[in-house]
Structures are given as structure tokens and as C-alpha cells.
């Protein structure tokens, strides 16, 4: 290496020798017994030693509660009566959940919420991403402004939207009243059976559309300019370019956003709990609210564990599809 005249190899040599000296110093500093033990270990064993704490933590925090919940789902266990004998009741909890009309209605409420939030978030998010991608003057500033709702805590968002929805003093009801002529006291966003589900959909869309926009923007920015240039040479119209280039190439990213939001909204709890608490009646009682009521109001721990497992399988299935789509995106 030294016979090379370039300065670069000299620098590399110096760095290597410094590293060698540091390694030698580290070996000298290691106590003899420990050094002998480490020298006897294979690379595979050293790798296992490094990842063991993570695996132990994962087992303790994720896997153990899951296995415990599966076990509880086959019992009549109630957390508020810990001294009562636990009886194994087989698949009875699952059978009751899957034949119960109230739970079925909760699933339908979840489906309504998930469908409309995803549809609105995808449409608005993609449109915003498409506009931001035009790179007009001040687009960076507007991107930041659009991203603000996503950065807020759901607790804060839930509380201030409660104020906005107030029939007497709410700004939202005032604006709706101004444009429609309906008296603000008649616009009961959170206590009307018809409007309450839409009130939650509006808030979730307001909060999470920027997230969809970000993913779509990443997709749009990944499309190389030369494809558009080639399309312009072929005299393709803007409309044609959108349908033949922009949409197909951004589609995997849109699908990713849909799957991300689908999984998240399927488990939605905080926003619904803060805004309506599942009411009026059980109009906005989504699956996670039912689960919370069964577990911590009725104290049917076994039953709620079975319900949690059903939701887990649904989300896990969706996550599998998500991984498949993600692999397809990666391979592009």
C-alpha cells in the first residue's frame, strides 16, 4: 500500500493502524478470564449474546401477554374476582361473541368508520400530495402547515373538537349554520344518532389525512422525470400522463397508506372514547370500545380476551397482506 503515491491510501493506512492499535489496547484491557471465555465463543454465540436481551424483552412484553390472553379466552375468569376458581369453558366465549348481535353491530360500526375514513383520507391525501408535488412558491411552508394536525396528541385533538362541535359556542356548528341556515342549536354533532359517526370520521380525517399525504408524496417524488419527458415527446395529455404514469406508479404507495390506516383505524379507541364514548346509545360503539366495556366495566375478562384474540387475528391477517404488498413495492 505504501508504494502507491496517492495521499488517500496513506490516510487509509493510518486509519487502519489506529484501529489496530485501539483493538490491541482493548484486548490488553480485557481481564484475562473474560478474554479467554470470549475467545472460546463462536461468532454465532456472540451474536446470540447480543440479541438475547431484546428477545427476552420481546417475550416478556409481547409474547407472554398474548399467550396469557389466549389461555384466558378459554376460561370464565373475571379480573374483579381473582379468588373465584377459574373454570375452563372451551370455545364458549368465542361462540358467544360470534353469535352475539350486539358485537356484530359493533363490527358494522367499525366497518363504517374504517371505510369512510380511509376513503376520505386517501382521496384528500392524494389530492394534497399531487398539489404539493407541483412545487409552487411556498410549497414547503404549506407542507408544514398541513402536517400540523398529525403531530398533535389524540387527547388534545379530541378535546378541542368537542369544543368545536358544541351547539352553542362551537366554531364548526357556527360555520355549518352560516352556510346552511340551520340554527346552530339543531346541529348536534356528538349527540345525534345520524351525525355522531360522521363527527368522528371528520376528526379522524382531519388528523390523519396529512399522514396519507406524506406517503403519497413519497410515491409521487419517486417517479423519475424522464418518464414524463418521454410522455411529452409522445404528445400525451396531462390527463393521459396522470392515468398512465402517475397513478400506476404511485399506486403501491397509496395501497401502503390504505393498509397502514386500515390497521390503525380498525383499532381506533382514543378519539371515539374522547368524543362520544361510544354513544349516543351504541351508535359509535366500535369494536375497541366494546372490548373496553366488556373488560373494564362488565369485568368479563375471559370473554374480552376471546374478543381481543378475534381482533388480533383480523389485524394479523391484514398485516400479512400488508407485508406482501410491501415486498411487492420493495421489488419494484
Amino acid at each position, binding site marked *: 500500500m505504501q508504494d502507491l503515491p496517492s495521499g488517500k491510501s496513506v490516510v487509509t493506512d493510518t486509519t487502519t493502524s489506529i484501529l489496530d492499535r485501539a483493538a490491541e489496547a482493548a484486548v490488553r484491557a480485557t481481564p484475562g478470564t473474560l478474554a479467554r471465555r470470549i475467545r472460546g465463543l463462536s461468532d454465532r454465540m456472540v451474536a446470540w449474546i447480543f440479541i438475547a436481551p431484546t428477545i427476552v424483552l420481546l417475550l416478556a412484553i409481547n409474547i407472554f401477554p398474548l399467550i396469557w390472553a389466549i389461555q384466558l379466552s378459554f376460561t370464565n375468569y373475571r379480573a374483579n374476582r381473582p379468588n373465584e376458581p377459574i373454570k375452563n369453558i372451551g370455545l364458549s366465549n368465542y361462540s358467544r361473541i*360470534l*353469535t352475539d348481535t350486539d358485537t356484530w353491530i359493533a*363490527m358494522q360500526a367499525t*366497518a363504517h368508520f374504517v371505510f369512510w375514513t380511509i376513503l376520505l383520507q386517501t382521496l384528500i391525501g392524494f389530492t394534497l400530495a399531487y398539489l404539493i408535488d407541483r412545487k409552487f412558491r411556498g410549497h414547503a411552508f404549506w407542507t408544514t402547515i398541513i402536517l400540523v394536525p398529525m403531530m398533535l396528541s389524540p387527547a388534545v385533538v379530541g378535546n378541542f373538537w368537542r369544543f368545536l362541535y358544541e351547539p352553542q359556542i362551537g366554531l364548526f356548528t357556527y360555520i355549518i349554520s352560516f352556510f346552511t341556515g340551520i340554527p346552530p342549536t339543531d346541529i348536534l354533532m356528538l349527540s345525534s344518532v345520524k351525525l355522531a359517526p360522521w363527527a368522528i370520521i371528520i376528526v379522524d380525517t382531519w388528523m390523519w389525512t396529512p399522514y396519507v399525504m406524506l406517503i403519497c408524496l413519497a410515491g409521487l417524488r419517486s417517479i423519475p422525470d424522464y418518464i414524463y419527458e418521454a410522455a411529452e415527446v409522445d404528445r400525451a395529455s396531462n390527463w393521459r400522463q396522470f392515468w398512465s404514469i402517475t397513478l400506476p406508479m404511485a399506486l403501491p404507495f397509496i395501497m401502503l397508506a390504505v393498509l397502514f390506516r386500515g390497521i390503525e383505524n380498525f383499532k381506533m379507541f382514543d378519539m371515539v372514547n374522547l368524543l362520544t364514548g361510544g354513544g349516543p346509545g351504541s351508535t359509535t360503539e366500535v369494536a375497541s370500545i366494546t372490548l373496553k366495556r366488556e373488560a373494564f366495566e362488565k369485568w368479563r375478562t375471559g370473554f374480552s380476551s376471546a374478543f381481543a384474540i378475534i381482533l388480533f387475528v383480523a389485524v394479523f*391477517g391484514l398485516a*400479512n*397482506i400488508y407485508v*406482501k404488498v410491501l415486498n411487492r413495492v420493495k421489488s419494484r
Partner: protein
Amino acid sequence: MSAATAKKRRSNWPVWLRRGLLENIATAIIGTGFLMLFQPFALTLYTWSFVTMLFGTAMFIVVSKFPE
């Protein structure tokens, strides 16, 4: 790559048991189970949704280990 090498690499695994096809079938089953869970039309479909999803998910996990 020579013809001999290509022949050597050819797997004896049946074509209909390849990962791609079976993963697509498993995904379709999971999707069907998902729709059955959320549909508002028949309680029977809702009742069988969990079994369908569970089967689809288990199938997905198993077939994702199959050769391409």
C-alpha cells in the same frame, strides 16, 4: 448458465404448491374472512368469519415458507 446447471436447479416441488399462487389464495381467504366479519347482511357469515380468517392466516404463514 449451462443447461446442466439449470436442470440441476429445477425443483421437484409441484407447480401447484408454489409460494406465489398459494400466498395469493391465502390472501384471498383472509380478505374474504375480513369481509365476512364486517358485512351487515347475514349473521351466519359473521359467525364463520373468524374461522375463515384464522385458516387464511395459518395458511399464509405455512405457504410463505414454500419455494417460489
